[in-house]
Structure formats: structure tokens, C-alpha cells
């Protein structure tokens, strides 16, 4: 080993990912032909390689890079999930991008750089590294939303996402500056120490926290900060929508868990109220606004808003029980969403991609296997036993009741009953409606592999739901 003034052992996965992304960028720029597909597969391999590097690291809690970077078992678990799901999303998108003739070779590079941003976010131990990570992942995602630049809707989605995202980044910065002004430091550990030494600066810190939280609520699209979600999900290419729905929210939720458990633990009575409102509003918006949607991508957008609402319940409850349940819920949600998007991206009708729910009519007769797979995913999403989604909701509501948040649990159950209507409607359209036009299912090996993995995860968790829960609870234990 070379002797460096600071130890870089903990950030080796990040360094590998950054260098790999830049290397692939140079290859792509120098190559005479368009090699988007090759680069995508190389990016998937790079993500998996980074995952193995991450697993080989020591996951004991350690703070490095002059206090900016923290590595613990929580960060390790989230980063592994981010890396693997990003590899899955890239595998989903290769066939789709080729067919839709989106040839920009920068696509996989931007996905890699956004992954890097998420890893920085998850390991942030300072308001500065929080902001750098958040901005790195968002900036790459803004470009991805607009990557089909000749399409008006894609450009609109990108602009909307960019303007609102910039606003939320501004709020995060403003909140951070207030927090810095009062605590005199941006380091999470030091903020917690300063607060416990001087409890009377609570008001100033909570001012900053409100701004920080509003900005983060934009990023996880919690109601009432959700306005951009349906439009962006609808306008972006479907493979990018899949990315938006699956990965970034996990990183942002993990970031929220960390800032609530470390620097702002002392302000718990403040942020619990805010999260309570965010959670209830998201659950209700996700359930009721989705009822009238005809577009599958908009429907999934509202569904993701609702799911963020459920995930927030666990953060409100707190402790390893609550946070573990949230992580468990969201990991299952990610697997289900990956499968759903995989099927939707594979279906075509008259050579065009599928957008409307009614296009699924009569799918059970022409493509029974795919119809049953989608039905399993929908049952799981709506939380019907014995699917994995049921256990996710069960553990969340169980933790809410154990923590004394009865109203929250009741509202959650009510809104998930309402939400079940639109999930079941998809099944009804597939199995009981007459087919008008023929559907084509396009096989693509990496995409089908992702769908199979997603189904295996969901059915596997039915048989043994406990081990993953124990894993997530152990991981969150390192936050306390």
C-alpha cells in the first residue's frame, strides 16, 4: 500500500466507481461507433464489481475523510441495495433503449455517476457531503429524464424536474446554512454534541431542519411536495422512470434516517410532527389520486408517492424496529417495482410502447405466463397475503402500533385498501376484459432475468420473511 496522509480504505468502492465511470466515458467518446449497449453491460459489471469490493470491506462503524464520510453496517446494506438495484435497472434498460433508438452512450455513464452520488449521500456524515452527494445524483437524473431530447414530453419532464429539484436544493442549502449558523459546525456528530451542550438553541436548529426536511421531501416525492412526480414519470423514457421509481428514494430515505438518528435526535418531538403530516398526506394522495389514472406510468408515480408514505411511518416510530420495518418495506417495494417495469417495458402494441392501462386487455389469453407474473406483482403491491408486500405492510403497521401510533396505522390500512382498487383493476383488465388489439411480448435476456429475480425475491420472502427483517434491523442498529 502507498502511504497516504489520509486513509482511503473506506471509500475504495466510491473511488472504483468514479474511476470506472470516467474510463467508460473516455472509451465511449473515443469510439468511432455507437457502443451504448456494450457500455451498458460494462457498467453492470462495474456495479457488481463495486458491490463485491463493498462487501469485502470492514462494515464496523468508522468515520474517515476528515469526518465527512461514515461507514457502518447501515451504509453498507443500503449501498449494496443501491448498487445491485442500479445494476438491475441498467439490465432492464438496455433492450428498451436500443428499441426506442435512444443511442446516447452517456446513458450508462450518467447512471453510474448518479449511483456514485447516492453512495456519497448514504455515507454522508456532514451537511457538506450530504449536499454534494444529493446534487451529484440529482444532476445526473435531470439529464437522464431529458435524454430523449427530441421528444417534447421528455424535455418537459426534464425541465420540471430540474426547476423543482433546483428549488429543493436551494431549500436544503438555506436550511444547512441556518444550522451551521447556530451550531457552528456542519459535522453530524458535532451538531449533536453542540445541541446536547446547549439545548436552548433548539428553535434555531429546528428552523434549519424544517428547510432541510422540505428539500428532502421533494427528493422522496412525499406529499405535499409531490407535484413533479406524475409529470416527470410520464414524460421520461420508461427505463428512466423505472430508475426514478426504484433507487433514488432508498438513498434519500436512508439519508433522512441518518440525519434524524444522529444530528437531530434531540429534536425528535419537532420532526415527528412534520413526518406525520408528510406520511399521512402521501398515503392519501397516493391512494386517491391514482384512482382515476389511465396511464400506467402516472399510476406507478402515485403508487410510489403512497409507498413513500408507508415507508415514513417506520421513521416516525423510530428505533431499530421502526427503521428496520421501513427498510424491509422499501427493499420489497423496489423488487416489486423492478418486476412491474420489466413487464411493462417488454410489452408492445403495434410497434409502440405500452402507456395505457386498457392496452393490457385480454393479456391472460395471449401471454398467460406474463399475465400471471404481473398479477403476482400487483397482489404483492396491494399487500394481499401471502405475498411479500403483505409482510412489508404488516411489519410497518405492527411497529406503528407497538410505538403507539394507532391513528397512523389505521390511516395506513384504510389508504392501502383504497389503493388495492387500482392494483386489482390492472388484474381485472388483464384477465376479464376482451382483447381489442394484439399485444406483443418482446423477450430480452437481461430484462427477463431481472423479472425472474424480482419474482423469486417476492415468492422467496413468502416462505421466510424473517431473515431479511432481522438483517435490516441489525443494520439500523448501527445508527444508534
Amino acid at each position, binding site marked *: 500500500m502507498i502511504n497516504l496522509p489520509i486513509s482511503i480504505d473506506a471509500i475504495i468502492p466510491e473511488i472504483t466507481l468514479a474511476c470506472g465511470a470516467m474510463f467508460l466515458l473516455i472509451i465511449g467518446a473515443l469510439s468511432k461507433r455507437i457502443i451504448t449497449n456494450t457500455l451498458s453491460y460494462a457498467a453492470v459489471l462495474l456495479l457488481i464489481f463495486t458491490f463485491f469490493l463493498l462487501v469485502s470491506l470492514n462494515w464496523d462503524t468508522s468515520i474517515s475523510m476528515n469526518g465527512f464520510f461514515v461507514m457502518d453496517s447501515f451504509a453498507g446494506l443500503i449501498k449494496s441495495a443501491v448498487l445491485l438495484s442500479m445494476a438491475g435497472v441498467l439490465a432492464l434498460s438496455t433492450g428498451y433503449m436500443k428499441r426506442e433508438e435512444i443511442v446516447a452512450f452517456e446513458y450508462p455513464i450518467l447512471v453510474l*455517476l448518479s449511483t456514485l452520488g447516492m453512495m456519497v449521500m448514504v455515507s454522508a456524515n456532514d451537511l457538506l457531503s450530504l449536499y454534494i452527494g444529493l446534487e451529484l445524483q440529482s444532476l445526473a437524473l435531470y439529464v437522464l429524464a431529458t435524454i430523449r431530447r427530441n421528444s417534447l414530453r421528455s424535455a418537459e419532464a426534464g425541465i420540471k424536474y430540474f426547476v423543482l429539484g433546483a428549488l429543493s436544493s436551494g431549500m436544503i442549502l438555506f436550511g444547512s446554512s441556518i444550522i451551521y449558523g447556530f*451550531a457552528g459546525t456542519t459535522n453530524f456528530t458535532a451538531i449533536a454534541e453542540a445541541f446536547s451542550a446547549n439545548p436552548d438553541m433548539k428553535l434555531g436548529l429546528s428552523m434549519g431542519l424544517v428547510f432541510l426536511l422540505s428539500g428532502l421531501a421533494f427528493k422522496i416525492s412525499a406529499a405535499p411536495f409531490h407535484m413533479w412526480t406524475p409529470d416527470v414519470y410520464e414524460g421520461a423514457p420508461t427505463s428512466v422512470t423505472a430508475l426514478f421509481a426504484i433507487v433514488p428514494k432508498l438513498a434519500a430515505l436512508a439519508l433522512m434516517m441518518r440525519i434524524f438518528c444522529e444530528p437531530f435526535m434531540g429534536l425528535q418531538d419537532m420532526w415527528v410532527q412534520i413526518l406525520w403530516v408528510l406520511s399521512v398526506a402521501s398515503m392519501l394522495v397516493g391512494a386517491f389520486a391514482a384512482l382515476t389514472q389511465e396511464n400506467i406510468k402516472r399510476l406507478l408515480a402515485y403508487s410510489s408517492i403512497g409507498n413513500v408514505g408507508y415507508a415514513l411511518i417506520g421513521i416516525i416510530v423510530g428505533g431499530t424496529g421502526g427503521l428496520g420495518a421501513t427498510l424491509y418495506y422499501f427493499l420489497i417495494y423496489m423488487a416489486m417495482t423492478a418486476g412491474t417495469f420489466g413487464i411493462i417495458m417488454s410489452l408492445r402494441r403495434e410497434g409502440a410502447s405500452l402507456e395505457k392501462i386498457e392496452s393490457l386487455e385480454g393479456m391472460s389469453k395471449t401471454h398467460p405466463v406474463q399475465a400471471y407474473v404481473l398479477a403476482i406483482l400487483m397482489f404483492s403491491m396491494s399487500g394481499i397475503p401471502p405475498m411479500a408486500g403483505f409482510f412489508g405492510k404488516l411489519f410497518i403497521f405492527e411497529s406503528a402500533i407497538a410505538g403507539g401510533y394507532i391513528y397512523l396505522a389505521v390511516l395506513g390500512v384504510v389508504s392501502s385498501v383504497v389503493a388495492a382498487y387500482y392494483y386489482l383493476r390492472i388484474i381485472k383488465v388483464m384477465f376479464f376484459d376482451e382483447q381489442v388489439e394484439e399485444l406483443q411480448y418482446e423477450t430480452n435476456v437481461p430484462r427477463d432475468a431481472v423479472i425472474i429475480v424480482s419474482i423469486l425475491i417476492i415468492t422467496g420472502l413468502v416462505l421466510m420473511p424473517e431473515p431479511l427483517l432481522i438483517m435490516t434491523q441489525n443494520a439500523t442498529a448501527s445508527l444508534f
Partner: protein
Amino acid sequence: MLAALIFYLFAGILSLSALMVITARNPVHSVLFLILAFFNAAGLFVMLGAEFIGMLLVIVYVGAVAVLFLFVVMMLNMEFKELRKGSMRFIPVGLLLGGVLLTELVIVYQTWKINPKVLTETLGDSAAAPEVPLTNTEALGQILYTDYIYIFQGAGMILLVAMIGAIVLTLRERSGLKRQKVADQQKRQASDVLEIKKVTPGTGI
């Protein structure tokens, strides 16, 4: 005495030109006043001993941002009078919202407490203070690549993404463009392109 005089000079011109930025009828004048405001603010920073921020203000804001504004204003050729027509309607609402926010901030400011360490401890007091006082620029240079290397490199990655994004979204390959190829020009031999024909008088080619 002299310092106070210079301060009031800079501050006065700064406030006046800031006022002119929003009242000037000609948008080009607005941008020019903005540049004047930046210069005076930079002067104030230098007086505070923050010469690095002063230089940044001149280089980044005057050199890049304000010039960009000037370009945009001149190239767009917008009818600013048309834009302003309706803006008076929004003034009451704007004042109301601003007033509410200001009152809230004042109320909060009267009750909140700042970490006492922030008020007493400044950079110069810390035990590691060097014997020869450093300038701002030197002090920043010493920590940027050492203590803050992680953040610095992260910011570099963000700029890389911004650059990739700008290229992905705007670069278009156009066919039929005539480009100069120096290597091809150099390789060109007279024998490749010239042909000598003998012309007998009176016949033509």
C-alpha cells in the same frame, strides 16, 4: 476615519446601484449597474480582510455571470415593457408574503440562542494558529486539497456531470458540414489532382 469614509463610499454606491438595477428602464443599464454593485461589494469584502471572496466576486460574478446576463439580454431582444405591465398587480401580495416572513423571522430571532462556541471561537484563536498570519487565499489553499479533498473531488464530479449533461442535450451531429482537415490538406499532392493535357492549337479540349 478614512476607513469609515471608504466604507460609506462603497456601501452608498452599492445600495444606489442595487436600487438602479431594479428601477432602470433599459435592461442593459440594469446589468451594467449590477456589475457596479458587484465591484463595490468586492471592495467591501476586501475591507473586511476577505480578499479571496472579493476576488471571487469580481472573477465569477462580474467576469462570467454578469457578462452572460448581458449577452442574454442583448440576444433575446425581449420587450421588457410588456413584461412589466402586469407586475404592479403582484406587489401587494408580494409585500404581504414578505411581511409575514419578516415578522416570523423577527419573532424567532428574538427567542433563539446561538451555540456560544460560535460567538467566542474564531479561526484565529485556535491553538494551531500559525505564527505568521496567513492570508485567506493561503489558508483556503492549505485545507482545500487536504482536509476537504473528499468534498473537493465530489464537487469535481458534479461539474463533470454538468459538462456531460450539456453535451448530451445540445450537441447535434449534422451531416453535410464542410470541415477543415489539415492532415488531408497536407497529404494532397499535385499529381493527385492535377492533370496536364496537351492542347493542339485550334482544336480546344
